């Protein structure tokens, strides 16, 4: 099928304002949008820049705004997007060039929740025990690939860039509800501030944007509840 791509571009040097460029490519209906972007880059216009790597939805490189929704370009098929496809960079971070945004602030928020296991005491000789039920408790939030699709779809983040954002809360949840972790109080305190979980207005954009199917609003709700109770 013939596909018309309308791509929001920005040079990144010089003083040209962002502009729209249109391309037409031939694509199989089952091609990924990433394949169509490659068809542009490799055979029409090598100056188009975007990030990508794994091409099957696990590395998180190619989140972008596709037909008005945040998705991974490698995890959405052309046939599901129609013959006219609009592609823009993620919202809320400075654009470096074309579809590439500066994610420094995104990863700073991630680091702010201390995303690493903080257990009590020295490790045992063998593994720490954890029942399948305890493991299941935080399974959903272990799936995060840090693609930033959720945070950059969130109106609370758009209006206040200091908001820690759904991705960081997801990763806090992953440790808060891990039975091996002992830094609950410290983690909760960090999320209780003015730019913490309370900025979430349960808009559910993040849930819709997540390419890994994480129930993000639910995870945020569980963190809020833990804050109210003072424990997980």
């Amino acid at each position, binding site marked *: 099928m013939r596909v018309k791509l309308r791509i929001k571009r920005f040079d990144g040097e010089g003083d040209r304002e962002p502009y729209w460029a249109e391309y037409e490519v031939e694509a199989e209906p089952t091609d990924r949008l990433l394949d169509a972007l490659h068809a542009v880059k490799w055979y029409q216009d090598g100056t188009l820049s*975007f990030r990508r790597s794994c091409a099957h939805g696990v590395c998180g490189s190619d989140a972008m705004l596709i037909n008005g929704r945040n998705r991974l370009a490698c995890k959405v098929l052309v046939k599901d997007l129609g013959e006219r496809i609009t592609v823009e960079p993620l919202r809320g971070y400075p654009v470096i060039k074309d579809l590439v945004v500066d994610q420094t602030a995104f990863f700073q928020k991630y680091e702010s929740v201390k995303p690493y296991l903080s257990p009590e005491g020295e490790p045992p000789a063998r593994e720490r025990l954890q029942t399948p039920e305890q493991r299941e408790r935080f399974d959903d939030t272990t*799936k995060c690939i840090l693609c930033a699709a959720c945070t950059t779809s969130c109106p609370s983040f758009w209006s206040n860039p200091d908001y820690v954002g759904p991705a960081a809360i997801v990763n806090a949840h992953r440790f808060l509800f891990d039975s091996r972790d002992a830094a609950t109080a410290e983690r909760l305190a960090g999320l209780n501030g003015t730019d913490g979980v309370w900025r979430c207005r349960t808009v559910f954009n993040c849930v819709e944007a997540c390419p890994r199917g994480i129930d993000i609003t639910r995870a945020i709700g569980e963190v809020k509840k833990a804050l109210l109770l003072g424990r997980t």
Partner: protein
Amino acid sequence: MPASYHQFEAVIVGAGGAGLMAALNLQGRDVAVLSKLHPVRSHTGAAQGGIGAALGNMEEDHWEWHMFDTVKGSDYLADQDAVEILAREAIETVLELEHRGLPFSRTPDGKIAQRPFGGHTREYGKAAVRRACYAADRTGHMILQTLYQQCIRNQVKFFNEYLVLELLVEGGRVAGVVALSVADGSLHVFHAKAVLFATGGCGRIYQITSNAHALTGDGMAVAWRAGVPLEDMEFFQFHPTGIYKMGILITEGARGEGGKLFNGRGERFMEKYAPTLLDLAPRDIISRAIYRELRQGHGIEGKWYVHLDLRHLGRAVIETKLPDITDFVRTYLGIDPVEAPIPVQPTAHYAMGGIPTDVWGRVVFDEKNKVLPGFYAAGECACVSVHGANRLGTNSLVDILVFGRRAGRDMARFVAENDFPPLPRQPEESALRWLSRLREGGNGGAARRVSVGELRDTLQGEMMDKASVFRDGKLLTEVGEKLQELKERYQEATIQDRGRVFNTDLVEAIELGFLLDVAHTVAVGALTRQESRGAHSREDFPQRDDKNWLKHSLAYRTPSGGIELKYKPVTITRFQPQERKY
């Protein structure tokens, strides 16, 4: 723009499992990690099914059995001293990962869960054993996340989206690297006492591959250009179950959980090829079996794929133990593995060969294993060799962690004992020349300009058609000639993007140069090795030939850019070569 200079005691290139593990073992030293991607985008994160370690959590198991399986799986080409280390240290490594926070799937009594995998056996081949420790089918994701999290905790310094261009060698010692910052196009010289390459594989030399776009053999090619040979490059693993046409990996764990392969006649064809282990035979054997079936016209409806059937496992097992591959099949094929079999074909997956190292990750560059001081390699870009002619499933994750850690520890020792070597004079000069040629185009003028995309397509198609699962002298000769021609045309390759900021046109052109060099070593190594062993299967030399070929190949760059092969012996300790049957 002049280059920026940096100085670190140790520089690690690559931020997948091997690079991050090394960084964590260099604590207290002055270390920089360079990655051409953000670290969490590294391809370790795509590993699915598990990491092998004889924990014995499900049933009796021993590291000696793991060692034997690895040696036999390698078709006796692996160095057994290194395999012994791999199998022994796998156990403490998996436990360390758990202690660092990795959320493994669990047994009912709370231990790390384990499942069967291809070629993993009890009592030296008697029956399958549950050895693969897993976190659903996203084990690699969990490993990458856990290690990156630990690096945050330990405040490791990263230079993200830096592409390595050259290795600096001065006075017989490695002195650093030259790298390109993709974000702004600036050039950087990293002066170091020790450099580790942990840059991953080169699967993008093939058309159908499970490998990420980023896997372009960067470290291998850069080392080779600096005079280091590449070892055993003719051995490239094709994973039997890639999604038809796309190559996306469907984990061996799917067969570990009980998935079965069927041809177009509804036959469970592995009964013919591996009567004991069936669908859990090692990957080289199953990939060849699938190719044989396909060539006989036994594909599904005559097409170039067979079926992987999971339906009998039931929805609960499929969705809880194999959630990611279920998602891939639903997304990319529009079918539900709970209700329909999955169309699969072999997909280029893993380079057994690479930069030769000893068991401490130290790069060795001659037939006598002489060390190049200060240079280290680990992970898929390296060849210790623990995989020999064919890697067993899960051993790539064991390899990156065990030898990434060893490399980190030995680098810590090395940088404590040594001063900085001098830098070469004008270390960035040749990289500058090279980049400016790519930006400005070749000497042939506009009429002869060739596109990077077109050259890469030709390369990948040639390698797929003529140097993949089955090989023969005639086709390999053709590939060799074609590669020579492509390398010449590459000299005229040009790019459209002349900008400095995030110029991925330039990055891809550089990567194509790496791919061409690496593919050339694969093709020449494969043509020269006149036997069939592991993943290297020559139809004109169908037998393994221990008398002449029980040896590692070393592919050196000649001054004119060609390839010269030398050989070194295989280390055999416990297990004498036997016929390989499953």
